[in-house]
């Protein structure tokens, strides 16, 4: 009895069990069930499975500390929200993924210092593509720092932050408008942090915010400009920046 017709019937039968059918289709299914014990049994199995799943699977409620953390974050959010709102809605909503970010990288013109956040976030996203993140993989700063020698005309400071919970995992070179950048790659749990460093003269300049769901922190010190970019939450990224400075 398990005919082709029955196989076609399965998705309809399932849709019927899921309450997705219009009356006419539901009647068709009912008529078939009357004459087909196999499909009838399948219907019983689907119903039983649904019931079992709903009865036995744990309902994971958000833990109270998560609820409180989210509440706190929502209260502290106006700065980020303003940052997001300043961009035209069309652009903001188009930036919903890696592909969109790469498109932005290609089309947005440079806008002086204002545009740099877009470039570093796009470079961060691009680096997350397979095989793009690291030119040298090492958790040892004594390996990473000499690696830059001969590849760059400047020597970026390389800190070992493993003790602070930000292990170094490697480094690479990246090109940003106007400069080659040294990129140190750190990690916090499963979050990758890209720290872009290149020579600059703007002492004391700082910025922080978020683009496309990625947070960034920017500062300048000792003749270098620094941009830290990550999908890590803003507080911990600030903590990271504090450790580097």
């Amino acid at each position, binding site marked *: 009895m398990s005919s082709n017709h029955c196989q076609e019937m*399965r998705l309809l039968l399932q849709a019927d069990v899921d309450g997705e059918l219009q009356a006419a289709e539901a009647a068709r299914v009912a008529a078939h069930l009357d004459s087909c014990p196999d499909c009838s049994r399948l219907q019983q199995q689907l119903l039983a499975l649904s019931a079992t799943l709903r009865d036995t699977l744990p*309902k*994971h409620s958000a833990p109270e500390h998560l609820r409180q953390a989210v509440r706190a974050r929502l209260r502290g959010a106006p700065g980020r*929200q303003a940052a*997001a709102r300043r961009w035209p809605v069309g652009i903001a909503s188009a930036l919903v*993924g890696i592909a969109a970010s790469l498109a932005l990288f290609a089309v947005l013109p440079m806008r*002086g210092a204002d545009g740099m956040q877009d470039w570093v976030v796009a470079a961060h996203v691009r680096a997350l593509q397979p095989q793009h993140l690291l030119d040298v993989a090492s958790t040892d700063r004594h390996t990473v720092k000499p690696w830059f020698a001969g590849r760059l005309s400047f020597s970026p400071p390389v800190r070992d932050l493993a003790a602070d919970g930000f*292990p170094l995992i490697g480094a690479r070179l990246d090109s940003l408008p106007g400069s080659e950048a040294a990129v140190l790659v750190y990690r916090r749990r499963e979050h990758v942090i890209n720290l872009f460093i290149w020579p600059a003269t703007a002492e004391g300049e700082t910025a922080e915010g978020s683009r496309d*769901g990625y947070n960034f922190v920017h500062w300048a010190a000792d003749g270098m400009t620094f941009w830290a970019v990550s999908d890590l*939450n803003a507080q911990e990224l600030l903590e990271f920046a504090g450790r580097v400075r």
Partner: protein
Amino acid sequence: MKWRGRPQPGRREDAARPEFEDVVLTHLDAAYGLARWLVRDPNLAEDVVQEAVLRGINYFASFRGEDGRAWLMRIVRNTAYTMLAARQQAGRIEAGDSDAVLDVPDPDDGPELALSRQDDAARLERALAALPIELRECLVLKEIEELSYKEIAHITGVPIGTVMSRLWRARRALMVAEGAADDEQ
């Protein structure tokens, strides 16, 4: 830097913020539940929710007042995928590194499974956790969140027909795991 000093748009965001807060806090359990089922790790699930909330703040401008739960869950779902991919990539980097810092818990070994539960329920839960993620998310959204095909299609970004066939494959796999299914192709 200059973008810090620009005038704030003001009123509009003040009016929108409580609304966003409502959406998030109302559907936080659903958001966390979905994240749990997708990433199969309570700690990572919390990270996913927090990250999704941050993204949600940024994308809230594109929220058109449709179903807030589906809107939030779409962001949670996409965030979970991104973070799973990042973790996978981080895992690849660490491969061969003796002092790997990445702590990937065994998804089959969550503490909740150790609780005294009926064998059948535990087996079913394991079978669900073992499904490919695209099948698992469809089934969780249907059976646990009780969303419609249309909402599931919106959240997962695939056509309704694909949702239907994924649901079928997911259920088929669970019925086989339960030993309830007939041995037909």
